[in-house]
């Protein structure tokens, strides 16, 4: 991963930048959102160790490249990235088919179903905190 990031840095022009966009947290949360803006948490997704390890490795790769001093973080922030589904089943099936090493477990799915039963105007959503940072070449 360090090699990949190093290659990517080489492609950046002197006045250009590298943008690193990826999840800030390894666990996304299934929620039921209500029309008044209230969100009720049904639980986090189940993430396999390999995916957790990859998440950690990405952070380490970034720190390694920054420690070399050729690039600096000019700015960074996080935001919530939301996906909406028509039902807990649809969200579960979407995650199972599109995400690697991640599932909506039975307990979280059951809580989402229960919350939706009690709040029929709610909407199923998967909320993921995402980080975005801009790296520029160091002037020194």
């Amino acid at each position: 991963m360090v090699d990949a990031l190093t290659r990517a840095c080489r492609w950046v022009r002197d006045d250009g930048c590298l943008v690193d966009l990826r999840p800030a947290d390894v666990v996304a949360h299934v929620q039921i959102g209500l029309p008044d803006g209230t969100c009720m948490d049904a639980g986090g997704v189940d993430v396999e160790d390999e995916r957790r390890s990859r998440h950690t490795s990405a952070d380490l790769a970034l720190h390694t490249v920054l420690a070399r001093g050729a690039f600096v973080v000019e700015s960074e922030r996080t935001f919530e990235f939301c996906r909406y589904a028509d039902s807990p089943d649809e969200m579960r099936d979407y995650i199972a088919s599109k995400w690697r090493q991640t599932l909506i477990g039975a307990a979280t799915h059951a809580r989402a179903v229960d919350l939706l039963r009690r709040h029929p105007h709610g909407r199923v959503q998967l909320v993921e905190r995402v980080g975005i940072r801009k790296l520029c070449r160091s002037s020194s």
Partner: protein
Amino acid sequence: MIVQDPEGREIDALAALLPLRPLDVVEIGCGDGRLTRRYAARARSVLAVDPDAGAIAEFSATPLPPGVVLRTSPIDRLDLPDRAADVVLLAWSL
């Protein structure tokens, strides 16, 4: 149907970081082009890369925005000259 980021928070966050000039962008991890299509109009050129041939096929199933070129490749086999891009975007790919 799954709806992703209808609030546009992702493109807003990206747009806030990009320089205000025509850009040559290399995007690593373009997938089916969901994000690429949202910023392509601001770019002079986009080389959108993904190792997943299926995702690239999905991307190319509808007309590409002007200036967008697709390539199926893992990053470690992507042969580009040094200092080729104004922006290298690692899109959910690191």
